[in-house]
């Protein structure tokens, strides 16, 4: 993909290593990259808890025609835009992130617990998760 052209359209971004870090317009950016640079597969969304109440979401997109990969990353608080209208596989990724990190994706139709039981307290992969659920007591 053409970085300088991309930078002209979306000013609010910078290149950090191999990642493009954006600060806003997630939906528009992903849509633009998909339509203009043929990144047709969303390989995965990686969530990392930064430890300061923000979570970094990294979108790993792949272009089968050019065998090229791009990483777009954004820091969010507790809410993010859902990209399930652009990539339907994102429904699954976002559902997993909601379960493990507790981030609400606005526009995702399937936002509910995935691995954890429906009445489970907290989101296990967050750094401030307290492991004192009474169901784990038998293990001690």
């Amino acid at each position: 993909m053409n970085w300088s052209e991309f930078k002209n359209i979306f000013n609010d971004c910078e290149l950090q290593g191999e990642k493009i870090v954006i600060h806003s317009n997630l939906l528009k950016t992903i849509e633009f990259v998909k339509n203009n640079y043929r990144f047709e597969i969303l390989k995965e969304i990686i969530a990392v808890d930064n430890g300061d109440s923000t979570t970094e979401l990294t979108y790993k997109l792949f272009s089968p025609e050019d065998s090229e990969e791009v990483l777009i990353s954004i820091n969010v608080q507790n809410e993010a835009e859902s990209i399930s209208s652009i990539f339907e596989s994102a429904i699954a990724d976002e559902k997993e992130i909601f379960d493990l990190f507790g981030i609400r994706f606005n526009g995702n139709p399937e936002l509910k617990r995935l691995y954890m039981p429906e009445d489970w307290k907290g989101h296990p992969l967050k750094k401030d998760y307290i492991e004192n659920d009474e169901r784990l007591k038998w293990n001690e």
Partner: protein
Amino acid sequence: MSKLKLNLGPQHPSTHGVLRLILELDGEKIISCEPDVGYLHRGMEKMAEKLTYIQYLPLVDRIDYLAGFFYSELLCRTVEKAFEIELSPRVKAIRVLLLELNRIASHLLWIGAFLMDLGAVSPFFYAFREREIILQYFEKISGQRMMNNYFVFGGVRRDIGYLEDVENFLKILPDKVNDYEKLITENPIFLQRTKGKGVLDKKTAFNFAITGVNLRASGVSLDFRKGDYLYKDFEFTPVVLEEGDSWARYKARIMEIRESAKIAAQALEILKRENNLEQTLINPLTLKLPEGEYFQEIEAPRGLASIYVKSTGDSKPYRLKWRTGSYYSVNLLRKILKGAYLNDAIAISGSLDIILPEVDK
């Protein structure tokens, strides 16, 4: 017309693990399908944050117990790339040989189980007969049939042997695959249940992030082994079929077994030539991954598998994430089962080669 909600699974024998599908039916026709997973969740990613790398290594085989080598390889590769370790030709050949034998074993099990889903019992026994040879070979070299724990950071646990076993197996395999094909491929019942059923077009496959054999059976030549550093010196052609239906997915796996056997034979040639097992092993007790983010991926039997590790320079990862192919195939059921008949639901979901430990992690 009243709608019926049907619960399929989680203990249904043909869901290959514990997958629950909530189907909405209009007569025999499926209006909507909602997969419900998580019955096998073991917290693989949470455990990674609590364990050192060497403590975590034996666990990763269990993410997909039918293709454990691929996940070991990913974790080892992450560490090797971080320390810029160059593997010797013999180690590389050992890894390729075992990965491809593992792929053959995984596909053989799929063929047996898929045909069993369709009601044909005998192919299961034939496929398991050949798979048994591979598992016995794994046991000989690593002491384990399935969760091998054979790859270590910088090499393999011990040198490989009993190459004549592999040679004999690769000699008989093409004939055995011919036998399966005689039995299955042109069988009229099999054709009726799979031809034109569960058609997955290229666009939908991209949209749902389907990779691996399922994608290649829909006419896309995308094999992540091309461009993989392990497979650089090996010659093979990715199997591509155009139809995109259940039958094409079956045929593609059969063809991939033959292709994998060719790669394994090439690896065997290298192993006979290169007798020197040079390894740069890392001391796992003092292993601390340098600060940074690591991305690695490999073509596993059920699609693209990848690992992401974020390290803060500690002996344990700060965050570790797995991507597995089956997770996206389960999500695809939502789309692909819509409009199909209930009696095809098992055949279609079976043809996608879903394995639940990999989905639930």
